[in-house]
């Protein structure tokens, strides 16, 4: 039975992804902080889909512990999906270094730290799949969320470089670029309905991307084109906009 490791398993997106892979028959390793609170999800996945689900303590903000964390997993996952992220408070982060550092630490440093470990293992095996959930926010810095955006930009570039390197080692790396998604992270935000995806749609895109060995997938296809337009606006004009 193939196994998938879900890093940051308590988010709405992660729950939807776990369900999608469980439905396809994967055993699921759920990794999160205070993993014990995921017991209901653990029982749910195993009862609904007849698969094996396990809980693993994992903290993205403690990169030094990541090798030990991965070491402890048995069996080793065939697919690793890095879902965790932290939107943070942009305004607070402009003056509060702790907040700013946390945005960077979760979205970039933490993701790089764990995926480095996973990547080396997959290289040693000559197989494996890594999927990283980045964000369209990383494609161009905007005044409203450039801390989160720049950290995700770093993560996007990391995934792209990792893909380039691991391609030659037969390891598949998938970048997932969601736009707006209805989750706890965005609760209370007035999101434009036609542009916003559900966590289930994200899950379907991730699953499809892993199965078809895609490189970069957008959740809701038009985001690729929206971002293309946003990226082509000359900087001299872009800086005058209030985005």
């Amino acid at each position: 039975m193939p196994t998938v490791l879900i890093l940051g398993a308590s988010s709405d997106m992660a729950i939807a992804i776990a369900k999608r892979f469980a439905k396809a028959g994967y055993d699921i390793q759920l990794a999160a902080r205070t993993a014990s609170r995921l017991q209901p999800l653990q029982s749910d996945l195993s009862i609904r889909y007849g698969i094996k689900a396990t809980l693993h303590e994992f903290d993205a903000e403690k990169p030094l512990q990541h090798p030990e964390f991965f070491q402890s997993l048995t069996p080793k996952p065939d697919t690793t999906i890095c879902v965790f992220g932290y939107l943070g408070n942009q305004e607070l982060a402009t003056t509060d270094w702790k907040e700013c550092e946390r945005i960077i630490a979760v979205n970039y440093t933490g993701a790089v730290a764990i995926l480095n470990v996973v990547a080396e293992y997959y290289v040693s095996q000559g197989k494996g799949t890594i999927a990283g959930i980045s964000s369209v926010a990383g494609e161009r810095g905007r005044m409203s969320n450039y801390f989160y955006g720049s950290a995700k930009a770093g993560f996007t570039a990391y995934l792209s470089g990792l893909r380039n390197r691991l391609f030659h080692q037969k390891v598949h790396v998938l970048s997932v670029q969601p736009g707006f998604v209805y989750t706890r992270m965005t609760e209370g935000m007035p999101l434009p309905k036609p542009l916003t995806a559900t966590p289930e749609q994200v899950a379907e895109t991730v699953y499809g991307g892993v199965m078809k060995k895609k490189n970069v997938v957008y959740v809701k296809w038009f985001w690729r084109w929206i971002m293309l337009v946003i990226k082509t606006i000359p900087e001299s004009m872009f800086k005058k906009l209030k985005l």
Partner: protein
Amino acid sequence: MKKEIANWGNYPVMESDEKKFSFIADIQHSIQNASPFIPRGNGRCYGDASLAPVTINTVKFDKILSFDKVNGIFECESGIILDQVLEVIVPQGWFLPVTPGTKFITIGGAVASDVHGKNHHVDGCFSHHVEEMDILLADGTLVACGPQNNTDLFEATCGGMGLTGVITRVRFRLKKIETSYIRQKQVKAANLEEVLRLFDEYKDYTYSVAWIDCLKKGNGFGRSILILGEHAAISDLTEQQKKDPLRLPKKKQIPFPFNLPSWVLNTFTVKAFNFLYYGKNLKKEINNIVNYEPFFYPLDAILHWNRGYGKKGFIQYQFVVPMESKQGLIEILQRISDKGLGSFLAVLKVFGPQESLIGFPMEGYTLALDIPVRKGLFDILDELDKIVLQYGGRLYMSKDARMKPDVLQAGYPHLPRFRSILKKYDPQGRIRSMQSDRLLLTPHNPA
């Protein structure tokens, strides 16, 4: 973020801050600060029971906690909808002990409304099959209750319309089935007298309900089709069906695309529908094997069927009168027919005996009908309420959007005790809904 929400009847509409959660810890904090608030499931009650300025929505709180396939015990978080439960239990040879006419309600909602089904006369309400549950009280503490422990909280929660707290976990017993099919019998009854006689004649059937024509006058007054059913045994199935006796029905839903203008439903169209519906069964009696889906959930096949009643919404009027008040049933039906309150979906059922604190059913006749909201309707319904009370009956809170407080008071003899239990578990009166305020169930000016 505030947005406009309504329940299944699309009346009334209220602006509410709807809070969703996946973990209890996420909600404990919110409810300690929210006031007033009411728990809410999938919004399938008809009126204003799950509307409040703050609603605690359980639909994301939907995990299955345990499933004992040998003894048929199921334990889950409260936001899971029946459809999802059926998907897991039916292939293992189990069924819901009690199900209402839609599979799109949550388990929490099934308890809060203490729903009944076509098998009430045999199996009682949903709560009769509950072994234990957890309630998150207004002060953020989690309390377990059941028929043996914290019984006051348990009784007040079953049918208590969410007013005791947020139901978070429910453990209940399932019904064993050999197949996912139903052995159905339909019997035509020329009038009310005959259908009531048939209900009695076929009272040993597990499932029974009648579709009734409320507009027909004269000899055919109360003409009906009695629909009976039993879970089919493997030996009842065709060779083809025997290959997969616990097959789940295919999922298909036809969406109702828009709100129909409210004039579409009028006495003429309803009469025409009733004529065709009654006439479609050419034989006096039809016996066949059907899947459970069309038998229990015929309307679920049409997504958003409530749009058929127009933008102004509709009222589902459901009452029960005791067995000895057959005259009351006749009088009310006559009134409905005189006033032309015809409904495509008028459903008649005989309830078995039941004693409960705040639950709706009592041994007797229950009738439910959908009526589009229009001018003067509430006055007519007030008159019907009087007849219901005069014959010792009551109305169903899950369907209600308009009854007066005194109607509730007269219909539910244990109301004072219910109120005192609410006060015990929520002394500050922070759990309130538009309905509980309207019915004076909860204090308007909490301390």
